């Protein structure tokens, strides 16, 4: 959103001189900048929002650098390290900083049938930074095999490190988590974009024009909302061609989620339009003879940007949750694909809760991400709030 409409819109606050009026360019710039400043200042007040903002950025950095952050092949399975608990990392080797873990030996206890692992203090495995590991391409372009951390010997090292332990198949949870994050967060982003566009446009039309458009759109929304989501998911998901690859399915799923996700936003937008249609600045905008599209997108939409932002940031976590839900139903992404949903779905059993609780760790990033998005949204919302000053 740009500063001008904000100013133009709010009779109470239009400072002087308005951008439309005379006054030299320099002051204009200062002036506009200060509008952004104000917004930034307001945003800054919401401490948690700022932190959340950073968290979100961090997450998406992680999305881009998944292969770099992962240090093990997420699919490499090994029975002899099945269900290994997270390893304790020792940060200091004597006095100097040199993180290492102890080598572990594992076997199945013939009585309890649990796999038990013992650390062997005689065998230190130093953790190396920017170590050699499996091959990958940075952003799918530059081939490399450097990873954030790793151990000497790279792939063919007999003993290696498991920060978050391993799953039933002895696959490194940390690395799987990195790849899961990539998929889940992109799904969310993609999905929200789709439903945002749908929501604003359709909601806007229905609210602004009213009449037939409104009726039709409202009915559609009502019908869509009246069908419980799960049958819709099942129906649509089942309708997907079977021979589709994991990736295709993954996009299809996203579309499905967002096709159902836009209705909420649309309702919000419509509501605001209804409430606002008669407000004077809109009327005046009409009188001045702004084209309707212009009226909508230049004058009306920005004036409740805050609500769109709020609804969107609320929608994004919803996307993430939906993805996990779909996987739970075995409709969404399925193994061998890795996503938060898949990881959680594989943790959704008694034995995990009882004897390998670390497999539930993927819930943590989910929680953090969802909360971060919410707080970020809150902060933005407050900052963009026209009555904020």
């Amino acid at each position, binding site marked *: 959103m740009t500063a001008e409409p904000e100013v133009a819109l709010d009779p109470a606050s239009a400072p002087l001189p308005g951008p439309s009026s005379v006054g030299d360019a320099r002051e204009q710039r200062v002036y506009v900048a200060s509008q952004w400043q104000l917004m930034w200042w307001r945003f800054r007040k919401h401490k948690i929002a700022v932190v959340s903002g950073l968290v979100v950025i961090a997450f998406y950095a992680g999305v881009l650098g998944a292969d770099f952050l992962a240090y093990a092949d997420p699919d490499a399975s090994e029975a002899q390290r099945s269900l290994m608990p997270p390893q304790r990392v020792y940060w200091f080797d004597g006095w100097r900083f040199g993180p290492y873990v102890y080598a572990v030996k594992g076997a199945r206890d013939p009585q309890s049938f649990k796999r038990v692992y013992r650390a062997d203090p005689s065998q230190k495995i130093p953790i190396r930074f920017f170590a050699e590991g499996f091959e990958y391409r940075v952003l799918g372009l530059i081939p490399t095999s450097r990873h954030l951390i790793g151990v000497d010997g790279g792939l063919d090292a007999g003993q290696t490190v498991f920060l978050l332990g391993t799953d039933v198949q002895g696959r490194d949870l940390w690395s799987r988590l990195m790849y899961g994050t990539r998929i889940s967060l992109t799904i969310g982003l993609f999905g929200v974009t789709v439903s945002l566009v749908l929501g604003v446009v359709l909601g806007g039309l229905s609210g602004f024009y009213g009449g037939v458009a409104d009726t039709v759109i409202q009915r559609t929304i009502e019908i869509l909302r009246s*069908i*419980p989501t799960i049958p819709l998911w099942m129906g649509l998901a089942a309708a997907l061609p079977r021979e589709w690859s994991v990736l295709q399915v993954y996009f299809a799923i996203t579309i499905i989620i967002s096709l159902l996700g836009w209705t909420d936003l649309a309702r919000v937008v419509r509501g605001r339009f209804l409430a606002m249609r008669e407000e004077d600045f809109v009327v005046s905008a009409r009188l001045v003879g702004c084209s309707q599209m212009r009226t909508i997108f230049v004058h009306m939409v920005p004036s409740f940007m805050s609500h769109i932002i709020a609804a969107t940031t609320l929608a994004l976590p919803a996307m993430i949750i939906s993805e996990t839900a779909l996987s739970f139903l075995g409709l969404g992404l399925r193994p061998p694909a890795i996503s938060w949903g898949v990881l959680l779905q594989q943790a*959704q059993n008694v034995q995990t809760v009882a004897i390998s609780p670390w497999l539930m760790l993927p819930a943590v990033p989910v929680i953090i991400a969802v909360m971060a998005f919410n707080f970020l949204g809150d902060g933005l919302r407050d900052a963009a709030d026209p009555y904020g000053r």
Partner: protein
Amino acid sequence: MLAYIGRRAILAIFTVWAISVLAFAIIQLPPGDYVTSYIAQMASMGSVVSDEEAQNLRIQYGLGQPMYVQYLKWMRLIVQGNFGMSMEWRRPVTEVIGERLWLTVVVSVAALILTWVLGLPIGIYSAVRQYSVGDYVATFVGFIGLAVPNFLLALVLLYLGFVMFNAHIGGLFSPELQDAPWSAARVWDLLQHLPIPALILGLAGTAQQIRIMRANLLDELRKPYVVTARSKGLSEARVILKYPVRVALNPFASTIGYTLPYIVSGSIIVSVVLGLPTVGPLLLKALIAQDMFLAGTIVLLLGVMTVIGTLISDILLVWIDPRIRLEET
């Protein structure tokens, strides 16, 4: 006003019809039919259904005919108030749903109440005291509920319930009271089983209420009419509660109607995990087994509930928010 309600009612009827069609279509979307899934089931248990037998079944269930014929047959049944036989349960659909329906309502309402009782006050508080520690804490706690994948939470609570309190696992009744006739004991038993489901189902909702209330109220708080109210010399509490809160409540009115069916369909997964004898898991099973009439009826039921709910809340909205009243009438 009446004219408006009338118009909406007519639209609602149309919507219901559209839903029935859509519901039917959706249920038909997955490949195969009940017989297919039945055969598959048998096959996965090692026993075998021959093609001829399958054909017979299809004829007996009327699955052979084209879809529109099946739809019309279904409609005819419904008009007669007979929702058909559940193929998997081999009982009239109404019976199968009947016993579960009101349990569903009980659970959902419990969750709903929890949501509002927690959500609204916290929302108001954290809007009025924006950026205060209380605001942060409240929203934080609220959002945890929104963020935790509730099916996982459900399982964990189930397990902890067993480990710590030796609680009965899942369901809404202890085995001995499962199909006992209604009695004080049974009600008490139900109440004892209620908290965990209500909590889990309520959590996410609560967070949303907090967020929405906070957002709306923050908007209203800065409106000039609040200054006006203040300049009259009203006490702060009165100012807030009579004016901005009142206005900020409107959006809730617009949701209150369909919240119930929404919870029902939204809570299917949790209900499955908790093994609740509610409509949700039934629907899921029916869909998997492609038990057409059962699934169809439940979807339709929820649909109708939603439509009526929406109708109610729209009327409510028009009633409490004059701006829209002016729009619509």
